């Protein structure tokens, strides 16, 4: 597998703050690689180091096999789509897209031809003479991408480009971005704090926290097999339950806490009996039933009172308190409509497959 981007032990400090902490990773040619993390996790710093706007304190970045140390941003085979796009308002759409080509000293006719072709490929054929402020949000997005891709970079960096769009357009642009990437075959490195963007778009996602990658994997791996409590908590919604491991058998852990909650989960990493642990149970991995007999008999069954109903179409859920421990659970409502008449205060039963719940040794600060 050929890597278009390779980072080896890169470090960046701002004063005493370690923004990027000895990060090493590689991105395969033609893949869509996302860096997902909360704000302040160092992902923007990382992206700006790849683009060349800031230099790492130590470590090396190779792009397309070339060491980028001391190479200025305007000489790197990398282009960036900025957070607010940074289209040049003083130029027409055609001049925006042709800017990079004209900087390379191409003849005017050649620039016009390539700009025309590129605009066609992003379905903006004939928009050359338009002003930037005449474009819609989605069209601006496409111009920003066209402006970079026309230079045929080895790597396209995208800095949360969908952040400023409204929800509907964002959903639409997600699909468009994925299609564009597939059509061009350029390697995309995309940073975002929106897990849905990362999961939908990417071939590989790196979950970043406090300057380090917590886990790098396919969206499915991150979702189904989180390797750290941070990933389990950050990717997808989860019920986080703390307690001690009272029994460990292979990778099956029994967690109990002082409130009387007992649950079974799959251990990730080394856990021995007596350790403080954290378990994560996904709302959508939980089955809900009015009668206990309707739940699979081989799973533990819990009961609780509905505290509130969170109706959100396909993402509807309810909050309830488990009877014995009064622990709060968020449980996804199935889309079949059988719970559409559910009332607050009603008693319901729920259960989940212990294999679908993950359990980690609690990180020191959570003990």
């Amino acid at each position, binding site marked *: 597998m050929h890597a278009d981007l390779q980072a080896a032990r890169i470090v960046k400090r701002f004063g005493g703050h370690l923004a990027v902490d000895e990060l090493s990773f590689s991105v395969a040619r033609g893949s869509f690689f996302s860096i997902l993390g909360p704000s302040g996790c160092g992902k923007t710093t990382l992206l700006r180091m790849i683009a060349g706007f800031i230099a790492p304190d130590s470590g090396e970045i190779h792009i397309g096999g070339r060491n980028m140390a001391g190479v200025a941003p305007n000489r790197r085979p990398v282009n960036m789509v900025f957070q607010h796009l940074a289209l*040049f308002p003083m130029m027409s759409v055609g001049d925006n897209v042709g800017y990079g080509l004209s900087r390379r000293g191409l003849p005017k006719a050649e620039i016009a031809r390539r700009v025309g072709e590129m605009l066609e490929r992003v379905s903006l054929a004939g928009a050359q003479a338009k002003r930037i402020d005449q474009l819609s949000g989605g069209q601006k997005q496409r111009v920003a991408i066209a402006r970079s891709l026309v230079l045929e970079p080895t790597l396209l960096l995208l800095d949360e480009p969908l952040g400023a769009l409204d929800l509907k357009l964002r959903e639409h642009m997600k699909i468009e971005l994925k299609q564009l990437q597939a059509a061009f075959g350029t390697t995309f490195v995309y940073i975002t704090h929106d897990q849905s963007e990362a999961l939908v778009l990417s071939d590989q996602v790196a979950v970043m926290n406090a300057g380090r990658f917590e886990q790098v994997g396919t969206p499915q791996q991150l979702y189904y097999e989180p390797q750290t409590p941070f990933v389990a908590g950050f990717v997808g919604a989860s019920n986080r339950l703390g307690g001690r491991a009272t029994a460990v058998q292979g990778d099956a852990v029994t967690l109990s806490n002082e409130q009387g909650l007992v649950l079974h989960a799959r251990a990730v990493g080394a856990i021995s009996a007596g350790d403080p642990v954290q378990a994560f149970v996904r709302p959508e991995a939980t089955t809900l039933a009015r009668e206990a007999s309707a739940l699979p008999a081989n799973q533990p069954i819990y009961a609780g009172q509905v505290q509130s109903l969170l109706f959100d179409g396909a993402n509807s859920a309810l909050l309830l308190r488990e009877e014995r421990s009064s622990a709060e659970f968020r449980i996804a409502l199935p889309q079949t409509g059988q719970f559409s008449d559910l009332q607050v205060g009603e008693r319901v039963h729920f259960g989940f497959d212990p294999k679908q719940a993950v359990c980690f040794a609690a990180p020191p600060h959570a003990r």
Partner: protein
Amino acid sequence: MPAEANAARATAARPDNALQARLLFMLLLAPALLWLLGLIVLPHLELATLSLRERVAPRVYKLSLNQYRTFIDEPLYWHTFVRTAWMSVLATALTLLIAFPIAWTLAKLVRARAKSVLFMLCLVPFWISETVRTLGWMILLRESGVLPGLLVSFGLADTPPELLYHDATVLVGLVYTSLLFMVVPLTSALESLDDALIEAAYDLGGNGPSILWRIVIPHAAPGIAAGCIVVFMLTLGNYLTPTLLGGKNSLWFTEQIYTQFITRFNWEQGAAFGFLLLTLSTAMVWVGLKLSGQSFGEVMRR
């Protein structure tokens, strides 16, 4: 005034908020309108009539274009006129060149605290009256002054050179006086330039000069135009600086106007010169805006 009387009657009969608001608006506008009418429009009308008459006998005047003909026939006058225009353009260009790095520093490079200190430093010279400031320049530059003395003591000159009464000296004074009026609109224009645009241009292969030419200057154009208009008008109409620093050699058109009005007591000729200067500044501003493709309204909003 029937309108006001109507308004007053309406207010008395039926308290009307919209009407009160309009009255208040007119009241607030009144000083500006009075000022405009009394100090600008009326004197100019008077000047216009003055410039278009000729004295044929004591207290007998007739309509004539003679004052304007004198301007064309007398080489000294139009020579001074062209020279003033040219020097003003030069001073404006120099001010722009010097102000741009200052404005860039203020807008992009320094932090908020250093920025206010630097702005202060630009403002400090204006705490002193223009006359005193210009006299300060004279103390520095005259033959027995500070700078020629230094030149001699450093061995750069054998005898103290006379640094006053050169065109360059006049330009230095004019640029110095105008700098702030260029720095302020430029800084505000550059502050509104998103740094991401510069980074984006750099990322796409741009370098310093090309980013300056294609991104920074087009963005700052309204600010540049606003600064240039103000500086050009101030310079063209400046009297003190060219007179004191340039002496008899300065040949500034405002001096000609002064001479006609005060020394020669030829108000007709002075008025004609005044009108010519007004036409010149209007024409130059118009040409400048046309050349840079700016609209007056856009520039004045800065």
